């Protein structure tokens, strides 16, 4: 195969404006006779003599065909009634948001390094930071982190930096298992020890074990609602962890609309996943991690912070600030290595929070609560079905049947229901359990059909 001549009109590509004529003019100005000459610093022995062995170039028509073909092979919430949660929820997605995200000015701008021409992005981040504070009851929020799991990692590292000489962190075993795994990855070379504390019969953290574990620890993290769907008692946790830096983990952000904010109960850091604020599940990403801390911790914060200031004319304006915490200034000593974050998703979340507002956030949470309670009641009436944890739940609960979770779920799938997430792969001994999530999008009919289908599935297995 010979390599194409870049000045040949057939080499033109729709994403690359300059073509034959331009190229010749530009080479003239540069004073070389071919583009190849510009690559002479790359040694010949590492240069490709052929084109890469890849398909394409495809037209949009061909791309649509292939990618839509793939998408059509998924079975998803788009064509099934889904009860999947576990850290990724299908909430109402207001139509405004996605169309506004397509605005060039948001979509195709970079990190707002130059505030004079980036006030749109900067002001939105400042507003987003404010929403986080109002929702969590804490004082200072950052612009975004990668996701909930890495936000927890950053929180653990932050907490460790606060206390000299202590290297033990206490983590609730009922934190999202992926979050726990990610923390283990992050800290593997940093000399931090993890102690996990399990749950009691109600599905809440075992307070006795928690208290015992605090000894020598610099911090503690609990998730609420936890991975079993159960709402923790922040006050009790706080009492059991006196003196530790307390981290609250939120994997279901809409719960902040009705659950008591961690900042009110002695928590120092709240981290979480903002996906529930109207972001599509999209197979796990992009999502948006958040972190909100007490005032005193603000200079320990990882990631970008936007602050208010004025311009030379005294006009209010916003700017990236406290940059000395960050990698581009502090390099090896930075509070985090994060640079690119999840700005566009944070913008989406800001729009969501603004549209829903004070009343809407509460109503979403209330609907989740009420619909889940309704389903919980329905399920209680099904023979051979058990709800192993009796603590209060928000919008998720664990269901247990006498049969492997996968068997029951396969049966539900035949009814076009994505019925839950098996717990077995995450927690030994829970092979017959699965996690069921309900949101405001479920109709009463959906819930009734779910209960009926589940009951039928169990009956079928019993036979």
């Amino acid at each position: 195969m010979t390599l194409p001549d870049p000045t040949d009109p057939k080499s033109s590509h729709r994403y690359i404006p300059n073509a034959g004529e331009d190229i010749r003019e530009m080479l003239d100005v540069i004073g070389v006779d071919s583009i190849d000459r510009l690559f002479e610093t790359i040694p010949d022995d590492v240069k490709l003599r052929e084109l890469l062995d890849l398909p394409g170039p495809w037209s949009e028509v061909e791309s649509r065909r292939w990618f839509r073909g793939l998408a059509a092979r998924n079975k998803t919430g788009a064509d099934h009634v889904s009860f999947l949660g576990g850290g990724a929820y299908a909430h109402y997605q207001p139509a405004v948001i996605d169309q506004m995200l397509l605005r060039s000015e948001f979509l195709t701008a970079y990190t707002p390094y130059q505030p004079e021409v980036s006030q749109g992005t900067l002001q939105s981040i400042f507003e987003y930071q404010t929403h986080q504070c109002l929702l969590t009851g804490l004082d200072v929020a950052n612009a975004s982190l990668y996701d909930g799991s890495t936000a927890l990692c950053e929180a653990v590292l932050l907490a460790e930096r606060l206390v000299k000489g202590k290297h033990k962190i206490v983590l609730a075993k009922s934190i999202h298992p992926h979050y726990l795994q990610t923390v283990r990855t992050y800290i593997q070379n940093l000399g931090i020890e993890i102690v996990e504390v399990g749950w009691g019969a109600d599905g809440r953290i075992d307070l006795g074990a928690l208290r015992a574990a605090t000894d020598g620890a610099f911090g503690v993290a609990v998730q609420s609602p936890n991975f079993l769907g159960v709402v923790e008692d922040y006050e009790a946790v706080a009492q059991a962890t006196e003196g530790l830096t307390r981290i609250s983990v939120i994997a279901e952000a809409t719960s902040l609309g009705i659950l008591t904010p961690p900042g009110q109960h002695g928590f120092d850091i709240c981290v979480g996943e903002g996906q529930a604020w109207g972001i599509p599940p999209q197979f796990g990403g992009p999502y948006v991690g958040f972190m909100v801390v007490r005032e005193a911790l603000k200079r320990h914060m990882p990631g970008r912070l936007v602050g208010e200031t004025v311009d030379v004319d005294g006009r209010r304006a916003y700017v990236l600030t406290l940059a000395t915490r960050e990698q581009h200034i502090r390099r090896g000593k930075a509070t985090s290595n994060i640079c690119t974050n999840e700005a566009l998703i944070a913008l989406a979340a800001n729009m969501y929070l603004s549209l829903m507002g004070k009343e809407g956030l509460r109503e979403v949470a209330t609907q989740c609560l009420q619909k889940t309670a309704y389903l919980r009641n329905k399920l209680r009436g099904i023979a051979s079905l058990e709800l192993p944890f009796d603590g209060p739940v928000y919008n998720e609960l664990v269901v247990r049947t006498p049969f492997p979770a996968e068997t029951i779920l396969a049966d539900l799938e035949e009814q076009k229901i994505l019925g839950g997430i098996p717990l077995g792969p995450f927690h030994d001994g829970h092979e017959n359990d699965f996690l069921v999530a309900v949101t405001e999008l479920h109709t009463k009919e959906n819930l009734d059909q779910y209960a009926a289908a589940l009951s039928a599935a169990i009956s079928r297995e019993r036979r």
Partner: protein
Amino acid sequence: MTEEQTQQKTALEPLIFERSKSGRRGYQLPDLEVPEQDLDAILPAGLRRSEIQDEVEVSEVDVIRHFTRLSKLNVSIDAGLYPLGSCTMKHNPRINEEIARTPGFAQSHPLQAEHQVQGNLELLWTLEQTLKEIFGLPRVTLQPVAGAHGELTGILMVHKALSKSGNARKYILIPDSAHGTNPASAAFAGYEIRELKSNSRGTVDLSTLEAAVTEDVAALMITVPNTLGVFESEIKAMADILHAKGAYLYCDGANLNSFVGIARPGDMGIDVIHSNLHKTFSTPHGGGGPGAGPVGVSESLIPYLPTPTVEKREDGTFYLDYSHPDSIGRMRAFNGNFNVLVRALTYMRSMGPTGLRRIAQMAVLNANYIRARLKKHYHLPYDAPSLHEVVFSDKLQTPKDVHTLDIAKRLMDFGFHPPTIYFPLIVSGALMIEPTESEPKEELDAFCDAMIAIAHESQERPELVRSAPHTTPVRRLDEARAARQPVLRWKP
């Protein structure tokens, strides 16, 4: 400001919180339908909050107006050149946005059973194959969601590999021209940093490297081409030096745009490389993210890849493989930034092998064209041939007390986003210009004309440049005040 304009409605927009008015609403939810139960019976009062104090009450109209107006305060790649060096601000094709929104992708859940998401798994598998071919490396992990995240992933693998062979070692070597995430990531992976001095070409001398590679060195983290846009021509020799000492060669692939389809990291002896898909592969920056930072590795590092990996069975089906006992573990919940990966693969297919090669060719042509046009007007601190970006300094302007910051701000008055400034750190007053391949010649010319005009202004009317920008929605900000008395949220 002239009299005519003093009357104009202020361009800036109040905070959304300042638009709030009691009784306004921006949402409607579907009917509850189920019988409403007493809240106390479901959730004890002690676990419930009172109203979310100070949260907004605005209508949908207020919201769409607010964000439309905010958007108008931004410049963007769709509106013109955005030559931020090291950031590869290229055209973001709209087909990528469309494909990513396909309901079968957007509504797929990260914890679905494998047989339900065969389409997604095939997509991930195919992207890995594509990146393998581009990198010339045998495996790639798609989990990292940004360049820095990829760096951490890569260095953790190096650490694990060395630990397995008995000694994790202590140091990562990093040239002084490197991006700040490199040392930060290395530190988070448990290493100390040893900085390597650049030579007069801005690259690293083999002798410097040789001297630095002790038995305690785990890896060299190097950016190829480096942050001056200069290719490390001796990269293979560097690899040999490192490998001879049992150390690894990590490549920061942020600048892959300059050699994609021209040469392959794997062929250069590189052991680990991340690629910022939001740079070379055009997933939109979105005002600071999301991104994706896949990491390719050589044979010896495969056992340490994050789990799960995506694998293909004989029968053509795909699965997630968790059985990697030596894996560094999981880098993030779920499957990485899947819908960024969808965009990137769409882009790779739109380009094809000819287009991918053309990216590098035209990006380098564009940068060298700017270099040729501006080199008489701005000081070129390193005159080694550069590829996709060119770094000038403010040396010719400082005698008039005009600095890089002033030049950057003045460019805004000409309608351009400024280049990256004050980076790399080895150039005092750096102006780092990366046009990318997606700029037409006319736009480059207009930019060069503006830069030249500013060079003239700097001599003749320096105060005009020093007081820039003059035409932006806000003018120069008091950044010191922001840091000294931080106001980080609205308060009523």
